[in-house]
């Protein structure tokens, strides 16, 4: 494999030309977009609205970044998104892994119903459940970060449980029998022996859950009731809106870059992992 890489077989490459064109066009377009956004973040509103983004006639307006950073709580938004994603990923595992294990091992009264419910729940659209959840949250006085954390955990439980169920099902019963002979309780067997055995699946599903929680928007919009609990997506929309109302479009795109950059860097380092996670996660679902 390594060897063929060094030697370019021009004839074969030529055959692949249409393929190259398609992906290169796609990527080139993205580069244009990113360059434009970056250029806009260093321009004045007037330059943006006259199509002179990449000319920088009035110099580079780094102060857009200062305004965008200072006037908004970008760091708070990031902190919240990170908190939501990390905590809910852990919470989802704690809830769904045991359930998936039990469902894969035993049949009991209601086990079939629960399985079916999990599959159905996976595809219930948010708007079908959002109104009763809203009134429950108000009635029980649940608000703040904990509300979104709980919602995000519950939102990912069905998918995660179904996903892990298949993996537990492939594990041999010998493990438990051996553990039982050694006098290991069923509870301990699960946490110490069985759960680590499906580690690859756990990593995959966690990446998947992390991304969907990080990107979640609608729930966050409905249930966010203040700065201190706003995640990045909704926060960016607020920044974009306030920059729009005050006519600071340069600041708007600076905010976009500020929010984009950490995610992008993380992605650069993790892209292999993320991609394999999404790939595996998608196929199973």
């Amino acid at each position, binding site marked *: 494999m390594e060897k063929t890489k060094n030697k370019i077989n021009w004839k074969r490459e030529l055959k692949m030309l249409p393929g190259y064109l398609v992906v290169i066009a796609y*990527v080139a377009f993205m580069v244009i977009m990113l360059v434009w956004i970056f250029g806009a973040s260093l321009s004045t509103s007037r330059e943006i609205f006259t199509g002179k983004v990449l000319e920088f006639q009035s110099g580079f307006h780094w102060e857009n970044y200062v305004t965008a950073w200072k006037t908004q709580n970008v760091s708070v938004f990031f902190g919240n998104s990170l908190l939501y994603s990390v905590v809910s990923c852990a919470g989802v595992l704690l809830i769904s892994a045991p359930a998936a294990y039990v469902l894969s091992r035993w049949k009991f009264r209601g086990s079939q119903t*629960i399985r079916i419910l999990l599959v159905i729940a996976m595809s219930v659209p948010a708007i079908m459940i959002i*109104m009763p959840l809203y009134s429950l949250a108000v009635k029980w006085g649940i608000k703040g970060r904990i509300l979104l954390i709980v919602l995000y955990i519950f939102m990912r*439980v069905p998918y995660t449980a179904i996903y892990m169920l298949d993996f537990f099902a492939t594990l041999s019963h010998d493990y*438990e029998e051996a553990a039982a002979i050694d006098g290991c309780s069923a509870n301990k067997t699960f946490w110490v022996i069985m759960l680590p055995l499906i580690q690859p699946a756990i990593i995959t599903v966690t990446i998947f859950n992390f991304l969907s929680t990080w*990107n979640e928007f609608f729930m966050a919009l409905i249930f966010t009731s203040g700065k201190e609990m706003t995640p990045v997506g909704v926060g960016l929309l607020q920044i974009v809106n306030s920059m729009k109302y005050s006519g600071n479009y340069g600041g708007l795109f600076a905010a976009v870059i500020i929010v984009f950059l950490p995610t*992008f860097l993380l992605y650069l380092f993790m892209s292999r992992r*993320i991609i394999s996670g999404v790939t595996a996660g998608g*196929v199973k679902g």
Partner: protein
Amino acid sequence: MKKNRTLIFLFMAPTVICLLLMYVYPVLRTVAMSFFRVESVTADMGLWRFNGVDNYVKIFHNSGFIISLRNFLAIWIVGGVITLALSLLIAVILTSKIRFQGFFRAAIYLPNVISAVALATMWVQYIFNYDYGLLNQLVTFLGFDKVRWLGTDAKLWAMIAAFIYGSIGYYMLIYISGIEGIPTDLYEAATIDGASKGKQFFRITLPLLKGIIKTTITFWTINAATFYLWSKLFSPVQTEGSTIVPVIYLYDTVFGGKGVVERDAGAGAAVGVVLTLIIIAVYIVTDKLLKSSDLEY
């Protein structure tokens, strides 16, 4: 293995609570609510007034809802066909003997990690702009008249195009993993038999990807049904007919939009029910279609 009732109970309880609280109760309540006159979303059941199917009559007589359904169908069918076809094409390209596979995969998936808010703002303010936008620059360069990309005729399609561009990477990855799961000796055998690349695609790749295609259709359906953010960003001041989608309609109906003071949570619930029924119908149809053609090989 021996049944351990305590363990089963303890291990299952959180999931069952989750199912009941997050799904069963809300779905039932939404269904019930859709048959009542409910003004505020937080109103106690005591304040609900039964009004039969009036909510459904109301939304189906509202052009906002009808247009939103139409737009949903356009996003789902047209957007779906293009997205899934393009991402399959790119997946095939990126699993062939092309160079820089890793780079291209990462780059094409990139829009999924950029915030949609940022992407949509850029599309509206730059790509589709009438005076200096990228597309109109291209159009005038080619010697044509400028196009109103965000006019009433084209806006929905402009929005769908932007959405497709950002979505392809995700479906591409799913297809790639499917293709990589196909045993390579199948292709080798086909090559020896003299089958062309195209033939191999239709005879081997496509049939073996059937399960994956079904998955992607399901994912796309959920995406289209929950489509919200792009529509909001493409109509920045207030909801517009050309880009309205069911979720936006529901949001405005339940919470009231700009200049709209009427709130109707009952009608909102009816919207949710109708949309869910559509999704169920889609599942059944795709399931039937993709199953019946299983017999081919």
